[in-house]
């Protein structure tokens, strides 16, 4: 199999100007007053036909520029791009829709802009409408659509051209999960037909599930390419390293003029059992207590507390109302202690996490006292599975 796309010696330099009028005036000048920004620097890549290639990299690494040049939307500064086959690019799903026109009219509008002949649209229309799956809304103005519906319609039109090469730039980020599944499904279908897909996504999860090859770009240079596994391992290592460095540097870097702890300082958070002993293990049905000290250093109008209990997967079990006036606590300058008792929370055995903050809603100010602090519930007898016990009774005739 040959190459669907071949890129050689590709460089893209953006010309940046202080003011836009300079760009116009530069046409008549002999000198070039722009500052140069190299988005892609001498890229050499082959995209074999029939592969699903993930293009990885941080924001600003040149991914979108590369895709735009392959598509033909943007032009390269130097280098060659060779494309074999019909390209359909999804750089953005919903651009070009007219809000006032109906979904059906927008199908024609978009197809026209893409250069699809009218009779071909006519033949594909039902297929597009079926895929978009927006029911009778198809006859309503697009301004009444939800963003998910717009995305579905846009995707449906883009894939209807039956491309040899499909270019997908981070478009699955919009829309709901059903939409995503449907799109992935459609792309799997393309893959089976031996079509080439170039895929940009920040979701490594989707990439791992779907792509066969990878290209990792950083600052306009190819850092790695080849089998997805190798590339993604290198990329993830890089991300981890990056995060570690960011953490090490962060405290020095950001020293805001006034820290939250200059207003309210929190200390000594601990969880207690019914007997008042410090622990993070509780018996089923037992009260769960937590307490902490806080010091108000500057006058705060009003403070309320709230807390959230999550299960082991960090799904919310319960979150107290952040605006509940009953949860108002002392906010005069000085040291205070807050003790909260969760009265026999019927949580079943397992690990849970407790988070909580003190809030001042008027100023949108908050300071956390606990961030996903784990605690466990133990249970002697088995009464069922799940998160919480539901009281029930039954009648039987």
């Amino acid at each position, binding site marked *: 199999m040959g190459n669907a796309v071949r890129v050689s010696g590709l460089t893209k330099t953006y010309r940046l100007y202080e003011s836009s009028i300079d*760009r116009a005036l530069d046409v008549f000048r002999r000198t070039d007053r722009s500052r140069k920004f190299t988005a892609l620097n001498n890229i050499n890549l082959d995209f074999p036909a029939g592969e699903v290639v993930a293009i990885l990299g941080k924001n600003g690494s040149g991914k979108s520029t590369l895709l735009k040049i392959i598509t033909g939307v943007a032009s390269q500064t130097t280098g060659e791009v060779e494309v074999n086959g019909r390209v359909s690019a999804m750089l953005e799903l919903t651009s070009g829709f007219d809000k006032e026109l109906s979904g059906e009219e927008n199908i024609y509008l978009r197809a*026209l802009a893409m250069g699809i002949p009218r009779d071909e649209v006519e033949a594909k229309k039902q297929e597009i409408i079926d895929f978009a799956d927006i029911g009778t809304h198809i006859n309503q103005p697009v301004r009444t659509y939800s963003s998910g519906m717009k995305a579905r319609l846009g995707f449906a039109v883009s894939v209807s051209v039956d491309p040899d090469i499909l270019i997908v730039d981070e478009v699955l980020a919009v829309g709901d999960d059903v939409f995503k599944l449907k799109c992935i499904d459609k792309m799997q279908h393309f893959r089976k037909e031996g079509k080439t897909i170039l895929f940009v996504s920040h979701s490594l999860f989707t990439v791992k599930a779907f792509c066969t090859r990878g290209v990792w770009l950083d600052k306009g240079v190819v850092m790695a390419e080849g089998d997805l596994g190798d590339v993604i391992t290198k990329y993830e290592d890089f991300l981890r390293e990056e995060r570690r460095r960011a953490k090490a540097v962060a405290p020095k870097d950001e020293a805001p003029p006034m820290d939250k702890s200059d207003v309210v300082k929190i200390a000594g958070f601990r969880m207690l059992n019914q007997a008042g002993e410090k622990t993070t293990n509780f018996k089923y049905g037992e009260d769960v207590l937590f307490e902490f000290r806080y010091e108000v250093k500057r006058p705060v109008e009003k403070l309320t507390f709230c807390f959230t209990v999550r299960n082991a997967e960090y799904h919310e079990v319960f979150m107290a109302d952040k605006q509940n006036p009953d949860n108002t606590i002392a906010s005069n300058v000085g040291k205070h202690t807050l003790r909260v008792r969760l009265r026999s929370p019927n949580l079943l055995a397992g690990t849970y996490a407790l988070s909580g903050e003190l809030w001042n809603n008027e100023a949108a100010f908050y300071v956390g006292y606990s961030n996903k602090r784990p605690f466990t519930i133990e249970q002697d007898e088995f009464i069922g599975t799940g998160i919480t016990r539901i009281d029930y009774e039954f009648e039987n005739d």
Partner: protein
Amino acid sequence: MRTAILSLRDIVVTNMKYFRRTLDMARVDLVKRYSGSILGIFWGIVRPMVFISVYWFAIQVGLRGNQPVDGAPFLLWFLPGIVCWFFISDALTIGGAAIRANSHLVTKMVYPVATIPVFTVLSLYFVHLMLVGIVVVIFILSGYGLSVYIFELFYYTLCTLTFAFVVSTMLSTLTAVSHDVGHMVKSIMTALFWLTPIIWSVDTLHGIVRYIVMLNPVCYLVQGYRNAFVLERWFFVEWEYTVYFWVLMTALTLFTSFLFAKLHKEFSDIL
């Protein structure tokens, strides 16, 4: 110069290649402009009609300037010129912002950019032709009638269309690059309206001032519409002015092609 000629060839070839799509886009553009309104495209006619009525009222009734001009009642004398101006004004403001207004075609799709100003101007031209038709009907109904000179209209509407294509391509190339140009165009429109002999006659001027006013190509077009309806002058009789207009158009076309050649590759980077 070489750049300009090569680029002009590219622009013309592109436009010929995609002409069908351009026509469709023009139609869609027209529908889009008035989409969501009940009267739709008729707003394109209602708006200028209201404008004309108000002008006519202000001048004929308010200023009592009811004298016939060049032997025609003021309203009839005024109509051809103002209808020509409406089109030019839209071509400069709407057509002159065409590429920026259709930026999604530039940055998200592979679309022949050189046809964007063309389809925008064409969609405006449809409305213009309807207005010209209405003016013809008014002339017939008013009893003033038409003369053989009305055939000149074919020539002058084509001149106006050419002018609109060239200038809207030039301006939309510049507005794509710089917002300032767009604002500049909008702010000089009023000046251009009063400096062009639209509600006043160029024949009232004499000497050097008259020639300075006539340097404005819009003056040639407005006068031309009037030639066809009331002035009864052939364009080849005033051949010096016709030659001047076409020399100027050639220069503008080459200038526009040069600009387009230098800037169009950057559109997708800027917009």
